[in-house]
């Protein structure tokens, strides 16, 4: 039997699963297996979605959450990667600081919520801080590991062909760690998106996490599910966007060999 092209399957199969899941949801709600108050129907959620979109609240919450994630994550990337590079090349400092980094990496970012509110009040800043705390340490660790995994022969070749100190960084270290770092960015961005929702529930006055908390307080389960769906979809879109980085020709080697 002739196999269908993988790309066709890759597009069709997820849609089939999605359609099946919707069908199960619809059947359960039509059969009234659970009361409407704890298990909103697809139509109620759709109505809630339209209502929130018309009022403009959904877009406002979405923009607020995306702004916080983008800011916190970007700061973590632009500080975490250089820190990982530096520690990756300096064994003594790495040995000294690794336990501390592992300690903070193991702390749930949510444990920082009380301090975040005390230090930064309510609003964007505490959430950005929490996203930074969730992203920074995994990025540092992933970069350290990627630097440690660079085969020494690459530096030997660079020496043979007269690379300058700056070229060692830009033409050897950075391209050599790119695939591993991109993978860690995908994982960490997912983590940051998880944290923004939780942080906004407690330390926010807007955002998707706050919207869910608000819906729960108003016993609007339809809006709650609507918020959950938007969060899930945005999480998928963030990963799809970052996945595009793995398609850059000069990093494909990290995923194909």
């Amino acid at each position, binding site marked *: 039997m002739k196999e269908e092209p993988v790309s066709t399957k890759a597009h069709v199969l997820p849609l089939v699963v999605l359609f099946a899941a919707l069908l199960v949801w619809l059947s359960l709600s039509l059969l009234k297996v659970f009361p409407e108050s704890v298990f909103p129907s697809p139509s109620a959620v759709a109505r809630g979605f339209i209502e929130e979109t018309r009022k403009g609240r959904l877009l406002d919450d979405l923009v607020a959450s995306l702004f916080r994630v983008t800011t916190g994550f970007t700061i973590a990337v632009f500080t975490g990667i250089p820190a990982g590079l530096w520690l990756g090349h300096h064994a003594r400092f790495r040995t000294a600081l690794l336990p501390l980094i592992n300690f903070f990496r193991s702390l749930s970012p949510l444990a920082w919520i009380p301090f975040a509110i005390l230090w930064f009040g309510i609003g964007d800043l505490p959430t950005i801080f929490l996203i930074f705390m969730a992203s920074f340490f995994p990025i540092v660790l992933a970069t350290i590991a990627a630097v440690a995994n660079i085969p020494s022969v*690459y530096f030997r070749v660079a020496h043979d062909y*007269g690379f300058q100190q700056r070229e060692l960084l830009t033409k050897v270290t950075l391209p050599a760690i790119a695939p591993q770092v991109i993978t860690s960015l995908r994982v960490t961005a997912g983590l940051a998106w998880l944290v923004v929702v939780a942080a906004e529930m407690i330390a926010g006055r807007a955002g998707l996490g706050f919207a869910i908390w608000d819906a729960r307080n108003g016993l609007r389960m339809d809006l709650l599910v609507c918020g959950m769906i938007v969060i899930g979809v945005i999480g998928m879109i963030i990963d799809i966007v970052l996945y595009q980085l793995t398609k850059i020709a000069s990093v494909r*080697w990290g995923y194909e060999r």
Partner: protein
Amino acid sequence: MNDSPLSLQNVSLNFGAVTVFRSLSLQVLSGEFVAVVGPSGCGKTTLLNLLSRFIKPVSGTVQCAGRVRMVYQHDSLFPWQTVAENIALGLRHIGDHEERGRQLKGMLQLIKLEEFANHYPHQLSGGMRQRVELARALVGDTDILLLDEPFSSLDYLTRLRMRNELSRMLQQFPRTVVLVTHDIEEAAQLADRIVVLSDRPAQICCEVRVALERPREPTHPQVVNTVHRILAELGLEKRESSTLSLSAL
């Protein structure tokens, strides 16, 4: 041109308590192809590292006159660069952009990989990658080529092809070559002179010259005879089977 661009004079080297070389001397003549064979761990790669001045001896002198290039045992092509970009590393010292392009094109033609110029190393076979490694080391105005078991990761048939490929490339780009290898047949087929090292601390226990033009067939009687002689010297074959006498030092 320097008659002996590569030489070691009474070189001693130790790593901690382990003495690798004690008063070792070796001269390589300009344009000569020298192969170094010996027991595993005797210091063959260390010898190349000394010749390339990557490491310094504890005592003695190392002379290395000219631009040196090395081909390593393991994949050393930059995987994030294409075939053309990897080979172009060997042309970095040439200022003229057009000249670089001309030499790059010529080298791609020589290794018959023009169609693969924009491919990445992981998209090539082991033999093709090794051709690119050789091309990167040979391109540009270089004088000395150091080869550290360059074909050891390839299967036997590919190794045979790569030996011919190396001979062909050296005909077009003559270099002073030092080849470190475990493969005695490879040494006998390629080298003008084979240096046999002893166990640590490594001494040159004999040198065998092969007065036969390259490219050579691996089954040529003189190549086969040379293999017997080296095996006998390493104690891996009875001396009676060696038909020619050794020019032992």
